[in-house]
């Protein structure tokens, strides 16, 4: 299993998907700026408003600058069992953080990777690190400097919720953006 190259190409592929996704969901502006990775941060901000809908509304171009000066509100994304793939529904969340970090080069984020409780503790440490690492690489590809990011895996040690059913497990398999 060669995760690094795999994840890198995956992240690149996801960026492309995202560009397509943006235009197909009506975001007509800024498609080019996503792909250009030139560090310019004009235009839209995508900030989710709650746990359910991470597809935030796309703000007008005038509000963009202001939005990028605030840390995006949605700071947790969730993963499938035994997977470190960033799900398409959370790409907009990660992109919002990428824009914020590019616009604020002094901002630092610690990416906390978490797993559900199933499986052994130290192996889950490794899985949590993979999840956070996948987000770090995605952000990096989006032009965020490596010096702004670090990764800490908590494995299954800090569950967000108690419980032994799939809904609890799903809320615990997550990466949290900590500023």
């Amino acid at each position, binding site marked *: *299993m*060669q*995760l*690094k190259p795999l994840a890198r190409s995956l992240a690149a592929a996801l960026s492309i998907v995202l560009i397509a996704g943006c235009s197909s969901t009506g975001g007509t502006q800024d498609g080019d700026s996503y792909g250009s990775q030139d560090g310019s941060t004009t235009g839209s901000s995508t900030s989710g408003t709650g746990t359910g809908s991470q597809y935030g509304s796309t703000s007008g171009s005038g509000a963009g600058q202001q939005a990028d000066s605030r840390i995006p509100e949605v700071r947790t994304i969730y993963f499938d069992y035994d997977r470190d793939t960033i799900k398409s529904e959370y790409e907009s969340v990660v992109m919002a953080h990428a824009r914020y970090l590019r616009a604020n080069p002094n901002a630092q984020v*610690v990416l906390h990777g978490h797993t559900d*409780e*199933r*499986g*052994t*503790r*130290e*192996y889950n*440490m*490794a*899985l949590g*690190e*993979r999840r956070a690492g996948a987000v770090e690489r995605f952000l990096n590809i989006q032009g965020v400097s490596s010096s702004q990011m670090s*990764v*800490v*895996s*908590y*494995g299954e*040690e*800090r*569950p*967000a*919720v*108690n*419980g*032994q059913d799939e809904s609890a497990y799903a809320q615990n398999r997550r990466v949290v953006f900590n500023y």
Partner: protein
Amino acid sequence: MQSLSKVCLFCLLLLVSSVASANLTIEITRGSDQALPIGVVPFAGSDGLPEDVAQIVQDDLERSGYFAPLERSAMFEQPSQSDDVQFGTWRSLDVRYLVVGQAEQTDGGFELQFELMDISGQRRMIGETVTVRGNDLRGAAHYISDQIFEEITDIRGAFSTKIAYVTAQGIGDDMQFGLYVADADGRRSEQVLTSDEPIMSPTWSPDGTKLAYVSFETERPAIYIQDVATGQRVQATSFDGINGAPAWSPDGRRIAMSLSKDGQPEIYIMNVGSRSVERITNNNSIDTEPAWAPDGQSLLFTSNRSGGPQLYQYSLGGGEAERLTFTGNYNARGRFSPDGEQIFLIHRSSRGYQVARQDLSGDRLVVLSESTRDESPSVAPNGTMVIFATQQGNSGVLSAVSADGRSSFRLPSAQGDVRDPAWSPFLN
């Protein structure tokens, strides 16, 4: 004067029982059908003593799975020395072995005498006078259990050993973690570390004086070494990424661990004296959870190089790591038996995550536990039992199963979630 000392004893009893309420308590969950019937007669002179020595011995023997103790209510004679034992009486109760004894308070502590009788052979097997300094009646009782167990089974007793374990309370950002050391029966637990950041993976030094463990107290994982008696501790690693899964080598000079400082988690060996690390594995997969073979010549570890987690053995003499597990698609966190001939591990079966055993001479894997959310197996130094973490309802508890799977017990706790047990080496 005498009544005063009785009052003191009563106070002591209150104190002992209030301390005990924070302890783990044993629940036998499965008894072996091959357990040997034994009677442990209440020791003469033990009324009013702070501990019921015979009861501790009886509980030790029952917990081992090797013995099925006779209930006290069935003992219509209660001899305290071998000369008074009526063999016929005990034969009629189907008892094969009998323990008798007496206790006496002395100036500096207590004196215990015990004798072990072979009822069918109508003979005295062993006997000893045990001098107890201070209040350590529990320690003396475990010592007596060790002598009885070894005399009958030819296996060294492990009742005088300790367990280290981790507790957790709370949820999310608001959690409290504790590292504890307790007697092997879960009693006399003492907190050796507390933190609002995770504590993980305690491992004993082979001389039983130190623990190495992972603590997130700097908001990232690092490995610490702590002297159990003094509490003195040092941070041993501070690499980027995962600093995890410490495992002390049998010679005490090295600690194997998993570090992700170079990308993927890989197995490293740290020299405890110089703190230098040597990389052992090198590939594009997760390598973690190292364990030393008892001879110190090879490491067992978990790797997902085949796709999912499986156990591999790497000889420190060199060569390729050899895959050991092939049953199912999740086998992790392996530990050797003390003779190095078997491994105990977590196996994902159709029922869940369970403790399993595999003989290294063959590939057959046998599930030992009946619980299905098991983690962190740790083998007793005499190889008879495996302690592990599991779930009871929504709470983490410690449980143990005999190496043959025939008997098991549970150690529920009032201290929140209990996990990550580590059985100490022999301490005497």
